[in-house]
């Protein structure tokens, strides 16, 4: 999908108008950002917005995350183990100590 993020009130208004007028090409509107269909029309709308507000529109192309392809097993296991933790108030940093799971700083230093 195409992600459009706006950074000014004028660009946000333009995005709102585009979303209202071309609902069929909008996957989701998220406040001052929107996900557009990955079609030529989606791209056309995104490029028009950037052309109109060159300093206030960021365009990105997104793809779905397949954790079994893209994320190491250790990270997947850490995420599910932490969400199943016994004590809701334990921060992850404390949870990871003495466990087989990577520390937050390790996670932060490894590129996906």
């Amino acid at each position, binding site marked *: 999908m195409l992600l459009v*993020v706006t*950074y*000014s*009130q004028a660009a*946000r208004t333009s995005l709102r108008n585009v979303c209202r007028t071309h609902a069929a090409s909008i996957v989701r509107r998220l406040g*001052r950002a929107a996900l557009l269909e990955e079609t030529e029309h989606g791209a056309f709308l995104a490029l028009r917005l950037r052309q109109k507000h*060159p*300093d*206030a529109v*960021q365009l990105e192309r997104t793809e779905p995350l397949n954790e079994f392809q893209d994320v190491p097993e250790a990270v997947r296991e850490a995420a599910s183990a932490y969400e199943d933790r016994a004590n809701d108030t334990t921060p992850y940093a404390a949870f990871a100590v003495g466990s087989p799971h990577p520390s937050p700083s390790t996670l932060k230093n490894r590129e996906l």
Partner: protein
Amino acid sequence: MSLYEHVRVLAPGLSLSRRDVLVAAARSLGVETSVDAELRTLRTELDAVPASVPSRTAARRRVAETATTLEVKREHVATLRGRMQADDGGNVDAAYRDAIRTLSEAETEHAAAREALADARDQAQSAFDARDRRLHLEDRLGNARRTARRELISAIRPRVDDAVADAPGSEVDDFARADAVSAAFAVVRVGRIQRPIVVACGRFPDRDTAERWLKTPVYRIPPRG
């Protein structure tokens, strides 16, 4: 817009933006609100001109172009390799070495273009961060302005309603339901105006009466006929 600009000519058919004129009347009296300090701070912060976001267009085009070139060179090398295997080298050998060399150049150029684009994106990201903060400030400013307007209006509304009830020719005691001329009379009486306004509606018998009631200097134009 100042109160004077809203009400400088009072005549039948006057069109009045009711909430705006109440706000202007309150401002003319220097009514303070709970968000005045915040408004000042936000305006000062927003005075700074945001850094422009560096354009990534040229860098993106360069990445696309070098990628295409790279692909062409790769195919060329593959073709020559196939031909060499078919006819056992010989003449093709020199061309192959040449093709390998230009392929390696194309790879270098593409890598450099990608790196340049990544740098440009990083720079743009910091500029976007600044704009992100600015957008939050603008939204806060909008909220603070609305709060200020609400407070100004409720601070002045009772006095204006009283004046509406007293206004010559008015039949109601509510600013919202008053005719435009009576509503304007009321805000002029309550607010503070330094410059003379024009009264052309025949509701006051003479200029002195108009000035006394409106508490402001007046030019009176008698109604025709």
